[in-house]
Structures are given as C-alpha cells and as structure tokens.
C-alpha cells in the first residue's frame, strides 16, 4: 500500500521537483485554434451570405423605382427609397382581370388558413388521443394506412377529391379547400399528437379512468391542459404549411378565392404588360412575411415542429 494515511498534499511542490516545475502551465495556448476558427467561421459566414442574399435582394429591389432597377445592379442598395411598389403590390397589382392587388389573396389565405388550422388540429389531436389511449381493433391498421398515405404524391389523389367535392357541391369554394387541407394535414398531425400522448405517463390516464372519467372528459380535462406545447408546434406546422400551399389552392378554388401564393404567381408570371420587378418583389415579400413572422417568433419551437414533422414513424 502506498504511503498510507499521508495526505500527500505538496504545498507548492517546490521541494520535490523544482526543476520540472518549469514548462507549460495553465490553459493550453490557442495556437492552432485560430486557423481552425477562421476555417469554421469563414465557411459559415459564406454559407450565411448565400442564404441571406435572396432576402436582401428582395428587400432592396422592392424599395427601388423601376428606372433605378433598369440602370443599377440588383445588389446595390436603393439610392432613393420608395414604398410605392409595396402599395401597388398590396392594392392595385393586376392578376388577369381584376386589379385589386394582393390584398384579396391575403384575406383569402387568412380565411383558408385559420379554419383549416383549427379544424385539422382539433380532429388530429382527438385522433391521436384515441390512438394513444383508446386503441380499438383495427385502429393501428387505419393509422398505418394514414401514415403510408402521407408519402403518396398528392397528384394521385386530387382528382377523386375533385369528384367528391363536386358531388357535395363545394368544389371551388373555400369550404372545399379547408376540407382538403384538413385531410392532408391529418397524417403528420395525428402522428405528432399520438406520439406526444403516448409519451405522457400512462398512470395519469389510468387514474382518471378509475375516477370514472370517460373519453371526452379525460381529453378535455387532463390531456388538453397538458399538451399546450404540442398544440403550438402543430399550429406552427399548419399555419406555415397551409399558407405556403400552392397546388391545392390552384386545383380546388375558383379565381376569386385564390390564396395569396397563387395570386402572387399570377401577378409575377403574367405575360401581359411591362414587368414591374419592384412590385413583384414587394408582392413576394408580402406573401412570405406571414410564415417568416411565424418562424422568427416561434424560434426553437419551429425547429421542434419540423423535426417532429420530419421524423415520421
């Protein structure tokens, strides 16, 4: 046994090996680190530039007048800032026949997004709850079909839906589009809620059942209050997803109900008239501003939302 009982604390170590006390001491010098850091931050900065450039170009173009755009380069900041393109994009840009700007599309999108988000989340959360806590014969089979269905290209299913909606007399209306968004939001939202409810302690559910609570009571009084974060994640997912939709908007609505993305595309890619790039970019920013706002406000929850949405199964 080595030196039992001794405290072996050398006060400064000066007596034993004073010669070897020389040499490195303390924090490792950051010698090679600077080169490494230049590489890391340099690469990240260049990448960041590539990602930021389009946003910058959008903003500066939208603030320039057309003469300045024709003369200057697209990266130059505006010499004379004008908000006219924004006003025009919002209120008087032309899509086909009518010239009342993007505002119509904006309000259409609002009228589509809000009910679609609310309804799809309500239905999917109840579905997920039933799947997590009240499994019945066949429930997993339906769920599997639902999840596999999430991978089927929409193009395969849109025409039958057109027929169903036409039969119901709501093809071309906002109601029809809201139903379509609810349907296609269901797989991912149901998965999200199911997985969340499964992760809650089962004892809670059992205790509530022993106390005599039923299906709806447990959902409303116990599950719902505990699930606020996942509802926010689902909201982020749905608001951005539905707002950004183009295909369903173009397929399932009549022109007067076109959502903002469809209208934006019609404004920018219309073949008539002189191209007004500043107005186009202002319209583009306006359309992108809603999901961007959601993104910047929600921050980490957005990441969580897409991660949850991404990791299927």
């Amino acid at each position: 046994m080595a030196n039992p009982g001794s405290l072996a604390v050398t006060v400064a170590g000066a007596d034993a090996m004073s010669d070897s006390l020389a040499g490195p001491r303390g924090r490792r010098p950051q010698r090679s680190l600077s080169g490494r850091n230049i590489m890391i931050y340099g690469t990240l900065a260049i990448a960041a530039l590539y990602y930021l450039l389009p946003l910058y170009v959008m903003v500066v173009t939208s603030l320039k007048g057309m003469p300045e755009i024709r003369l200057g380069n697209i990266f130059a900041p505006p010499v004379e800032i004008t908000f006219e393109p924004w006003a025009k994009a919002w209120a008087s840009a032309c899509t086909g026949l009518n010239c009342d700007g993007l505002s119509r599309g904006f309000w259409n999108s609002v009228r589509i997004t809000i009910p679609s988000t609310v309804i799809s989340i309500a239905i999917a959360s109840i579905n997920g709850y039933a799947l997590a806590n009240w499994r019945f014969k066949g429930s997993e089979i339906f769920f599997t079909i639902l999840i596999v269905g999430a991978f089927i290209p929409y193009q395969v299913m849109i025409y039958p839906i057109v027929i169903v909606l036409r039969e119901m007399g709501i093809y071309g209306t906002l109601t029809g589009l809201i139903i379509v968004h609810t349907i296609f939001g269901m797989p991912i939202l149901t998965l999200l809620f199911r997985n969340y409810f499964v992760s809650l302690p089962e004892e809670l559910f059992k205790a509530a059942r022993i106390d005599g609570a039923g299906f709806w009571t447990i959902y409303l009084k116990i599950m719902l209050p505990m699930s606020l974060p996942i509802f926010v994640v689902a909201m982020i997912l749905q608001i951005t997803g539905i707002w950004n939709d183009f295909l369903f908007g173009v397929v399932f609505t009549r022109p007067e109900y076109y959502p903002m993305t469809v209208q934006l595309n019609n404004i920018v890619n219309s073949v008539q008239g002189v191209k007004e790039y500043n107005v186009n970019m202002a319209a583009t920013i306006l359309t992108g501003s809603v999901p961007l706002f959601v993104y910047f406000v929600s921050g980490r929850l957005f990441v969580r939302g897409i991660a949850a949405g991404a990791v299927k199964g």
Partner: protein
Amino acid sequence: MTGQTIARRPNQLFRNLNAKIASIPMILTAVVIFLGGTLWTVVYSFTNSKLLPRLSFVGLDQYERLWAATRWTVSITNLAIYGVLTLIFSLVIGFLLAALMDQKIRFENTFRTIFLYPFALSFIVTGLVWQWILNPEFGIQSVVRALGWTSFTFDPLYNADIVIYGILIAGLWQGTGLVMCLMLAGLRGIDGEIWKAARVDGIPTWKTYLFIVIPMMRAVFVTTLVIIASGIVRVYDLVVAQTSGGPGIASEVPAKYVYDYMFQAQNLGQGFAASTMMLVTVAIIIVPWAYLEFGGKKRG
C-alpha cells in the same frame, strides 16, 4: 339489482364507442381518400377518359402514349437529375454545415436561424426570388458583366440545357437548412464519450466523423434521405414559379405534367397514368426503406 345478472360480453362494435366515433375522420381519410382515391386513379389510368372519367378500359394505351411523349421523358429526366443532385448536395452541404455548427461555435442560434429561414418560405416565393436573381438582364450575369467581364454568361433559366440547375440552386437554398437541422440533431445525439474515446485514441476529427460518427448516424441519414426524396417527387410549385416549365418544355417535371393533363389539356387518362407512375416512383423509394426500418425491427 338481483346480483344474478350474468355478465354478458358487450357487443364488440360498441366497445370503445367514443374512440371509434372520434376516429371516423381518420378512418374516412385513410380508407376513402388515401386508399380509395389512389385505387380509383390507378384503375382509371387504364381507361381512355378525356374530359370526364369514363370506365372504358384501353389496357396500357395511356402508359404507352406517356412514355412516347417527349414532354414526359424530359420531365422524368429532369426529375432524375434534379433528384440525384438534390440528394447529394443537400446531404453533403447539410452535413457539413451541421458539423461546423457542432464545433461549439458562438452565434449558433443566429447561424441556424439564417440557414433555416428559407424553409419557412413557400416554393412560389423561392422560385420567384431566384427567377429575379438569375435574370440575365438584371441579375448575377449583368452584375458580373458590369464589373468588366463582359462575356460572362450565367443564364440558367433561359438556357434549355442547364435550366434544371437553376431550379436546383433555388431548391437547395430552400431545403438544405432542414437537412442541416436534422443532421445537427443527429450529431447531438451521439454519445459525448465516443468523442472522448476517439480523442484518447488519437483519431483525428475528420476520421472520427468519417469512420465513427457517420456510420453511427445511419438512421438519421436514411430518414433524411426519405424526406428529401419524397419531397423531390412532388416538386411542382418551384418549377411553376421559377420557369413555368420553360424555356419550351426544358424544365418540365412529372407533377406538372399530371396537373396540366388533368386540368388544362383535359386528357384525364394521361394525367392518371402519369400520376400512377409518380406513385410507382415513390413506392420504389419507400418500400425498401420501410422494409429496412420496420421489417428489420421485428426480426431483431
């Protein structure tokens, strides 16, 4: 109560009745729309439906016509090029960015916010911005020419040979942030002691990534791959916004082919056949993955 009531087995149908009622929307969606709708389209792809769906079967006629159409072969070729390059570049760029972000850097949140924000934007917005930046008259080409290099040519959206690369640039801009996030989550999931062990063993960082960490992230890579791939097959809005399929038919994609034949050319049979081919493409990607992912678990 007599106490003699024999406990009868309740009717199976009414057990969990509330849960079943609550699941009706899910069941309808799964069975009627996803299963029924898909079968319906596949069945009608063997008919000669034109303006309206009709059940007069013509065998594989629609498929023969489809594969004979230049526009379809261009679409498929485009999808293949776009798909393969998107997969490679988004995985490589996404992983590299994630690896850089994982070096305990400062401003990590700022960088992540910057890399990910395009993902919040729609493909329409993405397509329109890049249409503007790649505009040869005002965009990058004109800026470089103004700097003195007057013969500089960079007009992907107006050159049929390279237009798909113009779309690729925009697509990568929109989607790599997501891949980076998934990869970063995967990297963060690696046991920190693995890194310590590799350092004690004296394994250089790049070798640790290549031989130890990346093999450990197999599941993350596969999942990411499936997500990117199923997104690629659907690519539609981006092309519509950026090029409308032009110049000519140079940047057509299958999803656009389907839409145009169903809702504009009023040749439903062609649209159904094309969409069925899309379904087959997805199945080719999904089935092996599902087999590996879920079939393997049952055995192990």
